[in-house]
């Protein structure tokens, strides 16, 4: 078997096991209160932690902070938090990004 297929199958299997872990093992057993309390904050902890370095040090600008990208991220964050609209946040963020790239060149 080639290296590529070994990577596909190995990575695929392990990734599935990670994603199935709690869904498969915990099932409908009730989790303790402290676990539920922590899990409420998964989306607002994991996604910001994922995005922060990508926003501050974008690979496309060689890892240097870029005003157009920073402003666009701020607008998406502000619009999303104020309007509660995912779509509104995406489109306003992208609009400001392209406006910024065009204006700041």
């Amino acid at each position: 078997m080639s290296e590529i297929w070994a990577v596909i199958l190995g990575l695929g299997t392990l990734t599935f096991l990670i994603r199935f872990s709690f869904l498969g093992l915990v099932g409908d057993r009730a989790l303790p209160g402290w676990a539920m309390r922590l899990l409420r904050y998964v989306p607002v902890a994991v996604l910001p932690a994922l995005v922060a370095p990508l926003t501050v040090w974008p690979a496309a600008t060689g890892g240097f902070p870029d005003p157009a990208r920073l402003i666009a991220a701020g607008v998406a964050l502000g619009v999303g938090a104020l309007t509660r609209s995912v779509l509104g946040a995406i489109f306003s963020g992208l609009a400001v990004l392209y406006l910024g790239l065009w204006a700041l060149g």
Partner: protein
Amino acid sequence: MARSAHRRAFWRGMRDGAPFILVIAPFGLLFGVVAREAGWDMAEILAMSVVVIAGASQFTALQLMAENAPTIVVILTATAVNLRHAMYSASMATHLGAVPVWKRALVAYFLVDQTYGTAINRYTLDPGMRPGEKAAFFFGAALGTCPWWYVFSVIGAEVGAAIPAGLALDFAVPITFIALFAPALRTAPHVAAAVVAVVAALALAPLPYSFGLLIAASLGMLAGAGVELALERRR
């Protein structure tokens, strides 16, 4: 009755997930292009995207293979990039624990950033949804988005490097992730979790294998839970 409620939830999932095609398409294209340049054939590119469905870890694997890392190192490092999905799995288990195990396995297969974020937003907005409806919603969001990952990987491999860099498609990913969590910043604990996670992620960014992300996310969750507890005590 249950069946029509499930059908409604499924279509609503498709609709809520649809905007993420905006990210999945360019990201998938890019994977196809880069894998093709690395010498992968079409079957391998398609298989990778279908079996793994995880952009960041697929790119990590390509990068390490280009550096001639040993196969086991490639697999384990690219897997580490997906460890955050364990947190998604635990979070989803609190909503979908009651559905049959084969459905939970299917949810696990499709559990990526975009489907998770879309689903958790809807579950929070509609707390009255039953587990079956929640699962149907998730499958709508998954089937509306994930197949495009396969399709655009293949298109990327076909069209090659004909995609203009000026489109700044790289930044569609952060923008849509921000759009996924921003509406959830409703309370002081949620804001605390996000602020701590961001500060820690930036401070820990030099750590390898996305350990910085995992530690930062854990600290963010602790901060959210801690503030929530403190506010409850004060009441």
